């Protein structure tokens, strides 16, 4: 009986084996890419909101502070979406006839909520808490990006678990002084823009804001009045001075100068009593 398959078909088989492997890999890669793509994560997408509210205009243009609207960010897990009343505080006086604001006026008149589309939407099995983040030195812009430059709100980061863990495994890289939480332009210390911090040491039961003081103005050159406020009667031993990569400002012995985020991060991790990466990345921290 003649052979059904010619010898040349061996090559075909080999090729198809390789091809199959490639296809499987390609499928895997594309699924992986899809999984992380903005289509799934909504990163960078601008949802169609009932009112095209501009954070850029209100924050950058008018200088509203974040907490004017997001009132509970420091005291609750939920930052809070402003009630219609907050809008009407101003818009009862200005732009009272603007067509864009019709849904706001309608809400105010009828008592029906403005149905915003959630931009930062975590899965329901994730329990994120704003209050602990902002109280421990994670600024708004770390997660939300330069909201003050966003005419329409969008998600700066993927909010996927790997993104969360990147920080929970090394919180220092994103820590900033609690006084800079709402500073949208904060970039961390550099050699050109150092940060000086002083501390009275963490105290039991005393919020961090009262024991650590940081400034971007060289305390040795600040005017005497500011300096006297900032100069705490501290007994900071200064053992972070070398390890932190910063050098002591000569005129203000109580302040430590930081020129890199690593140094500042390590300092703040200790001062803010940030839990260990092991604790922070344990499942029950976010899932329960």
């Amino acid at each position, binding site marked *: 009986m003649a052979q059904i398959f010619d010898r040349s078909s061996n090559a075909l088989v080999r090729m198809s084996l390789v091809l199959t492997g490639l296809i499987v890999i390609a499928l895997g890669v594309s699924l992986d890419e899809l*999984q992380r793509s903005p289509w799934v994560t909504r990163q960078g997408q601008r949802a169609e909101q009932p009112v095209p509210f501009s954070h850029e205009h209100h924050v950058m243009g008018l200088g509203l502070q974040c907490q004017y609207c997001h009132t509970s960010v420091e005291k609750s897990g939920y930052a809070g979406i402003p009630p*219609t009343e907050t809008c009407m505080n101003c818009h009862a006086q200005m732009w009272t006839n603007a067509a864009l604001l019709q849904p706001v006026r309608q809400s105010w008149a009828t008592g029906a*909520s403005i149905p*915003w589309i959630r931009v930062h939407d975590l899965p329901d*099995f994730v329990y994120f808490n704003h*209050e602990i983040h902002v109280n421990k030195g994670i600024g708004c812009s770390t997660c939300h990006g330069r909201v003050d430059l966003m005419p329409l709100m969008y998600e700066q980061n993927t909010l996927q678990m790997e993104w969360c863990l990147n920080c929970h495994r090394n919180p220092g890289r994103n820590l900033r002084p609690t006084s800079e939480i709402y500073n949208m332009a904060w970039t961390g210390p550099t050699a050109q823009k150092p940060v000086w911090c002083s501390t009275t040491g963490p105290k039991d039961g005393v919020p961090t804001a009262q024991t650590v003081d940081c400034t971007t103005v060289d305390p040795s050159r600040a005017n005497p009045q500011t300096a006297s406020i900032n100069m705490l009667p501290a007994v900071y031993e200064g053992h972070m001075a070398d390890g932190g990569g910063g050098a002591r400002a000569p005129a203000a012995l109580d302040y430590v100068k930081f020129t890199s985020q690593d140094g500042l991060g390590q300092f703040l991790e200790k001062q803010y009593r940030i839990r260990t990466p092991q604790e922070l990345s344990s499942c029950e921290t976010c899932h329960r």
Partner: protein
Amino acid sequence: MRDVPPMSWTGDSATGTGQQRGGPADLDLNNLDDGRREAEMAKETVKDQNEMAALKTGHEPAGEALLTLEQARAKLAGKTGKKYWRSLDELADTPAFHEMVQREFPAEAAEWIDPVTRRGFLKVMGASLALAGLSGCTKQPDEQIYPYIKQPEDLVLGRPVYFATAFPFPTGAIPLLVKSDAYRPIKLDGNPEHPFNRGTSDIITQATLLDMYDPDRSQRPLYRGEVRPFIEFVAAFRAMAADKKAGGGQGLYILSDTVTSPTLAAQWKTAQKSYPQAKWLQWDPVNRDSWYTASKTAFGDYYDAQYRLEGADVILSLDADFLSGIAHPGFLRLAADYANRRKLQPTPSNPNPEINRLYAVESTPSTTGFKADNRMAIKASEVAGFAASVAAALGVAGAQADASWSSGPRQKFLSAVVADLKANGGKSAVIPGDQQSPAVHLAAIAINQALGNAGKTVVYTETVNPMPAIQGDDIKTLVADMQAGKVDWLVILNANPVYTCPADLNFEQAMGRVNTIVHLGSHVDETALGAHWHINNAHYLESWSDARAYDGTVSVVQPMIDPLYGGKTPQEIIQSLLDDPDMSGYDAVRTNWIGTLPGADKDFAWRKVLHDGFITDTAFQPKTVTAKIGSLSGTPAASAAGTLEVVFRPDPNVYDGRYANVGWLQEIPKPIVSMSWDNAALMSYETRGRLGLAEEDVIEIELNGRKISAPVFSVPGHPDDTLSLALGYGRQNAGRVGSGPGFNAYLLRTSAAPLFAGGAKITKTGKTYPLAVTKSHYTDHRSVFAGGDGSGTHSLEGNEAMERGIVRYATVADFKQHPDFAHEENIPEDPKPNETLFANWRYDKNAWGMAIDMNSCVGCNACIAACYAENNIAVVGKHQTKTGRIMQWIRIDTYFEGDLDAPRAHFQPMTCQQCENAPCEQVCPVGATIHSPEGLNVMVYNRCVGVRYCSNNCPYKVRKFNFLLFSDFTTPSLKLMRNPDVTVRSRGVMEKCSYCTQRIIAAKIAADKQNRDIRDGEIVTACQQSCPTGAIVFGNINDKQSRVAKLKAQQRNYGVLADLNVRPRTTYIAEVINPNPDLDEAQIQSAPVNS
């Protein structure tokens, strides 16, 4: 599919699965077209679920391998040492039990028994498999945010607010602190500042949360079944009131449940001035008639008795179930005081704490009886004789001893009790049960007086309820007047007499003679259907009212939420009769109390009352009263040969039936019997054997010509020749949950004998009725390595409880000699920390742990209900419960010991032990259950793929699997109720106790914000919070000063199955019992081995 020829094997698997169930019916169904067939199958399954008829399970009840008492005793006789058991099957080692143990889950647990047939499932599954790789990439749907228009100023969204209120209950209010999330009540707990309950609560109180969110609540006023606005009723009612004013209200009758609100009583008092002829009558099927009758006889007035058990060395319960729930007046305080005397924890002020001793005689096995150091089961009708005999032996004038107590073991028991009481005059308490006759209460009053307890351990006060009445007389008066045509308008406030009225009165028929019947109620229930007007009631969490806790302290009931369905309160209806008919409930309550408040600034004082939830210093002052006892005797009437006595009891969960539609209460297994979703005719093994009945056989009970059918269930320690019937089941119109389960015992209950009645005849019907009993569910097959004998019959339950030391206890005398008894004897040693293959975890900061005091646990189930509420636990239904899929995270394991008829029982709350060397963690293929740095076994639902290896490997059987979609994701009202901090679990996910990890995290965040450590006692788990006796203590075991660490340092501390080297974080404090040494021998004489 049906056209595929039989030859073809490729595509035919689906047809094959259709035959899975077997039987000709299914074969016929295969010939139908697909859609119809599946509909039929679904219908069939639904029918199964509804009727539970002829359901075959692998675990047949003991019936088929029916074990006679002799056989059971013979089995027991050969054994040495303490012998524990949990169900008769286990005791007998029946083949059915063997089979049961061989399985990881009870029979059918691994099958699909739901309206989705297996074939349908395969179809769906095929599609999901195809998408499996993509499911992680699916987009979340757009979610919307609906902000407030004007946000309340003090509201911080995401942060709970706590408000004080009270749960008015006929036996006294339970003061509450309600956790409110965005003004939705989501958790009820006792008010920790209240002097009466100090933060504790009970199963019914916990479950009233679901009662409020019950989707079947009546939602609008009805007139003859048609929806009408409330205003129309008000107009009609006021017109009637105006008409009747001239006649002084003649023909106006009000029937309410027990009035608990002083404001309502005050309103009625005012109304009576204008309507002197109108009548207010009260009716609750479970009432305090016996006590009130006795009180009137002895003191000439209605009083309440408060027992101060902190000073009682000896307690005698005369059929009083004061440790199992709020059906007994003053339960929370009684249980706490009882348990405090059993903790045996030396304090600086009391270095040598003395344990109390509890004697119980009872007619229905209860947790009180099984917690008693010496217990005797007697017929309900014999309790009066016993009480009179005790009184006679103590020299009470006029007391006549009953002859049956003059010889044998009974005489021995009696004399031991009497001797102990005599020796502890002024330091003892005799508590009569509300379900006993007035004679028993009278005897208790006399005995307490003779012993000098009155004024010390027993004080008499005003009644908690502002309008005490003999309700049995009230309902008789009412029905007589209805029959006589005297009743023109009958206003029924929150009562359901059509269902609960004594059977001989025939309330339903009498209703036809009333011109207008108004029914105010939470549901369109049996009575509402016969009423002309039905007004939907506002739940107590939605309304203004007031009530007194059992100590007399006045609590203000304040609304936690706007009435979901615009319900009305009794106060609002009665206010219509007064001069100021539109006064709101708030004003009525405020007006009633504001004058009595201290201080000049009354408004401030009132606001403080609302903040605190109660008015301070309003507890009753003890009255100095002397009882006049006439004659006391209690020889029961001779019963006809061959008849049984029937005892009626409120159900421990659904009470008198008013909570029948609360799924949690239906599902949580009742104490002792471990039965959910049903009541049954409870009897002793002896009686069951004599009558030739098997468990789950349906019998017909005939009592004075009235008949009902009920399934049989036998209970250890039940007295012979009596049947115990729980009230509250067999409802017709309770709602989707409550209509149907069980049988209606009210149909046998007459006004002449509302508590117990003799002369019942029993006939076997030949039918069976499956009962969902959970006590044999948690079995495990142990290998030789894990301490088993390799036979496969060793389980977590009874028969290894002794060898493995699951239950450890000693008598006081033993304890004094061997304080380390919990680690002696033949109990396997706990391995040393280095005896493990796995690297030890390090716990540098916190290490959470729990200690459960077996001495304090009274098995009341409050913790289970609290856990359901806190952790969004799903209700699975009777069928699923029977197959072992009940989702409770904490259960009370009841271990019986000794003889079938006079056992001792041990209650052991069992929940995830948070092992440091957890077997579950080692087998999870996807890392869904892992170890946290603080020692928790955390369960990550979104990782779980449902292989169930963890449950298989869990020696405690505390993991629960969502076999089906048990959580209700659709009913809107239930969404409001859920704890927002806990994930609602979907199908295919394993879940278990997390030590309330959401509370741990909340405390951590609070502490971290303040840069401090978590304080001891800052984290309270839900079970711990609810526990009436403080049996559960949680905390950081690394902190040697914490309460839990101190408890664990006690010698009595032991870990269950700790010899497996799993290192449980939850440990138990071994029980110390205090039986009368004279009596112990006699008590368990018939038991095979003496402990």
